[in-house]
């Protein structure tokens, strides 16, 4: 298996001064974004064609965001209004639909399960991934290169390839129907991404920092947790954003590995609405909103990490 999803940075240890670290790939998107924001506009002359472009762009952006806006509006309209006129303007607003979806999809319980699964996955992936990435970035031997390559190759394997044997394995370990089974699965699936993120970042941290810590009498474990781990903060934030998106929105892992109703996540609870109420927008639209609401709230505060998290690896450093 060649590494397919993410590019492999060169194994050479680059020594870059700390001030340069602000311009690493991880931060490149927002930094370049600000720098070129004003410069970008001057370069293109505005002709009649450009006006047509404006209109096409506006229509495309509206088409992409309209279903979400339509979801919000429909969720707030009384169910009878929606049935009579699905595309009509709201004449009166209500939160009944949201309250109904809230109880039908066991929202409180789902929120708790999803949060536990996400928090567990995040802590485990960040700690285990960064610990492994440290020696992988610092030791350039053939065995570390191979360990790294085998990890990265894992990012290509779809979960469906593993689902039958993994189900049997977790069953034998007694980990079906447990948070531990789901968290371990998510952590292992996301380790390739975490190791890729952290290894590239460690290579940009000057080795002199570790040497100075060693002279002061700090062992590798202490150096890692006290000196290095705090420096990883930007890449940890990016990784956390990525994990939040993929774990929160996933259906298949908790659907297959969890049957106990008290452990079901928001997505599994939402999915269970399908069936008897498949097409009722007055139930499914508020359910969709409740499902995505925690992410929108979190991302409102972490906006700059979304783009860098999603586009990680898109540009060569």
């Amino acid at each position, binding site marked *: 298996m060649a590494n397919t999803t993410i590019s492999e940075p060169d194994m050479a240890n680059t020594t870059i001064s700390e001030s340069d670290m602000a311009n690493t790939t991880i931060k490149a998107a927002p930094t370049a974004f600000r720098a070129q924001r004003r*410069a970008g506009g001057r370069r293109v002359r505005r002709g009649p064609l450009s006006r047509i472009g404006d209109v096409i*762009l506006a229509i495309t952006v509206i088409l992409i965001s309209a279903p979400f806006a339509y979801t919000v509006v429909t969720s707030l309209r009384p169910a009878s209004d929606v049935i009579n006129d*699905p595309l009509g303007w709201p004449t009166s607003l209500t939160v009944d639909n949201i309250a109904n979806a809230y109880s039908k999809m066991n929202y409180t319980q789902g929120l708790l399960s999803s949060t536990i699964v996400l928090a567990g996955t995040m802590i485990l992936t960040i700690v285990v991934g960064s610990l492994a990435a440290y020696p992988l970035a610092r030791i350039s031997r053939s065995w570390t290169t191979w360990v790294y390559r085998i990890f990265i190759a894992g990012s290509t394997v*779809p979960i469906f390839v593993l689902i039958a044997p993994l189900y049997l394995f977790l069953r034998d370990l007694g980990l079906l129907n447990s948070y531990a089974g789901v968290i371990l699965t998510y952590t292992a699936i996301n380790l390739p991404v975490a190791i890729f993120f952290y290894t590239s970042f460690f290579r940009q941290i000057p080795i002199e920092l*570790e040497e100075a810590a060693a002279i002061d009498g700090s062992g590798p474990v202490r150096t890692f947790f006290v000196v290095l781990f705090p420096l990883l903060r930007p890449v940890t934030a990016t990784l956390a954003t990525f994990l939040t998106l993929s774990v929160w929105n996933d259906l298949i892992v908790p659907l297959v590995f969890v049957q106990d109703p008290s452990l079901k996540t928001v997505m599994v609870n939402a999915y269970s609405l399908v069936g008897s109420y498949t097409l009722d927008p007055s139930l*499914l639209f508020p359910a969709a909103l409740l499902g995505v609401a925690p992410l929108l709230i979190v991302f409102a505060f972490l906006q700059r990490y979304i783009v860098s998290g999603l586009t990680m690896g898109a540009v060569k450093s």
Partner: protein
Amino acid sequence: MIHRKPLIAVAFMAPAVAMYLAIIVYPLAQGLVLSGTDSKIGNPGAFVGVSNYVALASDSDVMRALGITVAYAVVVVIVQNAVGLSLARALYIRPRVRQLGSTLILVPTLMSAVMAAFVWNSLLAPDGAINSLLESLGLSSLAHVWLGDPSTALWAIALVNIWMFSGYSAAIFLAGYMNMSSELLDASSVDGAAGWRRFVSIEWPLLAPATTVAVTLSLIGSLKVFELPFVMTNGGPAGSTTTLTMLIFAKIFGGQGSFAYGATIAVLLLVVVVLFAGVTQSLLRRREERI
């Protein structure tokens, strides 16, 4: 100073390696073993050699799902990246609306496939918003039972996939644009390159790394699509949206409990993903080096 202490280095890697071996590598190997048995739920099964693979090759359902999966992936990859690239360029040359635009187009990407399926199932319903809109525009002849007709159901799902992730592709291409040297672009403007000419000879070659990432991610994502067909059509009508992942799920958890046969289809899926993604990526990487 970890590079001077190999034992400590190994200890640092141990938890990750142990989890990765247990949850990814071992099940991967076990899946190959499973595909050589006749295992069902509650029955470990006996070794049957390659007979599952022989059955696979003559199973019209599997071959159909393979065709559906590949056709879906090709359409999604081409359209999603074309839309994403156009959006990225349009936003790049309009710095004043760039931030607002790139935030708005990422909203569908934040929604889960389950949520997107809810919204689009309702929009695409026979009396849903899309048909109502067509009727109110006087185009009622175009109104259609989108998800109920075997000839349109898969493409309706592809449309939802494209809707969800065009903004994501655009974000990747936009990151590529932001990484371009402005000196080079300025120089090309001075030389009189503008519009389409500038795009073809300057921007497109410089976007090569972003293209590799955007195309590879959308290819892998669409080959393993599951939630959209699962929630929107559950594989129907008449199996027209049964992708390989849907078939794996149905064989294992759809009542028969055919773990062995599910694992065999899973091996086929892995081969398809590795083959398609591997070939596409090596072609795109070679192109990056040429440029």
